[in-house]
C-alpha cells in the first residue's frame, strides 16, 4: 500500500512523535505512506512496536505493511483539547481503529462527527508533522 502523506508541518502545533528504539521502523514507514505493524515469525501481530513479541518472546519481531484499512471500534468527539496545539481544532474525533490485519490503533479521524458510526470502514492517510514523523489519520472509505 501507499497512502497519501500530506505535509502539515507548517500548521501542526500538536505533539510530535520522536522515533526511538522499536518504533523507528514504524515512523520511517509512515513518512513513505506505509502503515506498518509487527508480524512475528510465530504469526502474532502487534502494535505499538515493541522489542519483544508478546506471544512467543522473540526479540525485535519484524515489520509488515498493513493495507491501511480497518473499522471503527469506537470513537469520541473531543470538545476539550487534550494536548497543547489542539485548541483551534475542537471538536475533533479520535478513534480506536481495528486494522484489517488485527492490531488496534488509536488515531485522529478526519471527518465530521455526524457522519461516523462504530463499525464503519476507514482508510489511513498520513500527516507529516515533523522531519522525522508522519502520523496516521483515518478517513471514511
Amino acid at each position, binding site marked *: 500500500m501507499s497512502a497519501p502523506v500530506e505535509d502539515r508541518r507548517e500548521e501542526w502545533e500538536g*505533539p510530535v512523535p520522536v522515533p*526511538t528504539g522499536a518504533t523507528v521502523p514504524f515512523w520511517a514507514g509512515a513518512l513513505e505512506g506505509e502503515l506498518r505493524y509487527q508480524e512475528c515469525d510465530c504469526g502474532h501481530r502487534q502494535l505499538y512496536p515493541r522489542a519483544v513479541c508478546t506471544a512467543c518472546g522473540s526479540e525485535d519481531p519484524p515489520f509488515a505493511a498493513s493495507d491501511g484499512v480497518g473499522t471503527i471500534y*469506537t470513537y469520541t*468527539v473531543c470538545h*476539550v483539547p487534550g494536548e497543547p496545539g489542539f485548541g483551534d481544532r475542537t471538536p475533533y474525533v479520535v478513534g480506536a481503529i481495528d486494522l484489517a490485519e488485527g492490531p488496534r490503533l488509536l488515531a485522529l479521524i478526519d471527518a465530521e462527527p455526524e457522519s461516523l458510526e*462504530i463499525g464503519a470502514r476507514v482508510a489511513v492517510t498520513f500527516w507529516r508533522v515533523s522531519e522525522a514523523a508522519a502520523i496516521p489519520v483515518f478517513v471514511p472509505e
Partner: protein
Amino acid sequence: MAEPILAGVAESDLGETPDRNWLDNAAIATVRALEDAGCSLDDVDGVAVAGGDDYMPALVLSEYLDLDEPSFLEGTEIGGSSFEHFCGHVRSAMARDEADVVVVAYGSTRKTGPTDERSLEETHPIDGFVRPTGLFRPPGAYAMAARRHMHEYGTTEEQLAEIAVATREWAAMNPEAAHREPITVDDVLESRKIAEPFNLLDCCLVSDGGGAVVLVSEEKAAELGVPEIAVAGVASTSTHRQDISEMPDMTTTGAAVTGPKAFEQAGITHDDVDVAEIYDSFTYTALVTLEDLGFCEKGEGGEFVSGGTTAPGGDLPMNTQGGGLSYCHPGHFGVFVLIEAARQLRGDYEGDRQVDDAEVAVAHGTGGLLSSSSTVVLRRES
C-alpha cells in the same frame, strides 16, 4: 486467615490546598486517621502509599513522619485502585506477623499544584502514537469505552446520567462534598460537552486533598477497642495501562475477575452487600463496574442504575459520600472508597445518610484508563 481490621480513617482538608503539597496532605490524613483509630505515629510499623508526585513515595512519607524503622513498605503504583490493592499485601504481611499497624495513605494537589509536562522523548513509546491524537485523557479514553458499551448494549446517555443524579443526592447530605445542589438527568445531558458521549456532569471533579486508612492486626484492634471492620476479601488485576486502545474489550473491566474472587474469599453473595463504594471517575466507570462485579447481568447496567437504585433509599446504596462525581477527586480516588465504606459499617452517620444496619460493604478501585481493578469486601464483625 487472620483479617486486617480497618481501625481508622480520615481525609485531609479537601478542595483547594494551595499552601500544601501532596506529602503534607498525605501526612495530615495519616495523623488524623491514627487519631481516629486511637493510636499514634509511634504505633506505626508499616506504610503503603501511592500516587504521590515523588520517586519512592513510601520512603518519602516514612521520613516525613519520622517513622522508626517501619517493617512494611509498599509503593506499588497501579493508579486509583492502589489502596485496595495494598489491603491484600497488608493482609499477607500481618499473617506473617510482619506488621501490626499499617497506614495506607494518599495525598495530592491535583487542582492547584504543578502539572506534569514531559516531552515525547521522555515518555512511553505508545505516547508517540497517542499524544498526537490530542485525546483528552482520561475523559476521552473512558468516553470511548462508554461509546462502545452504548453500541453493544444499547446503554443510553440518560442511563449514564442517572448515576450522576443519584450520586448527587448522596452528596447533598455530605457537608464535605464539593457539589451539593440537586441535579436532574436533563442537567447532566445539557452540561458542557467534554468528550462525547460525556458531558461535564459525567466527569469527576478535580480537587486537592488526601486520605488515609489505618489497618491493624486483630490483636491490635482488640487492644484499641475499635469496631471490628475486617478486610474479608481482596483481589486485584490489570488489563492494560498506557492507553485505552490496549484494553482488550472496552466493555468489560478487570472487576469481572476481582469481584468474584473477593466475594468468594469473603464468603458473601451480592444479596449480602449493604453498601457499595464504587470508583466513579466517570459515570461509565461505576456503571461498567457494577456489571462486572455481578450486581446485574453484563449489558444491563443502564437499566440497573435507572430509577434510583443507587440513590438514598435505593436497593443498592452507592457512593454514599457523593463519590468522585460530587464529593472530591484528588486524582486517586481509591482511598476514599475505603474511608466511606468503613464509616458506613461503623454507623458513623445519622438519618438518611446512614445505610441501615450496614454489615457488608464492597469498596472497588479503578486505576489508569480503566486499566487496573481492585475489589475489597469489608465486613463488620458482630
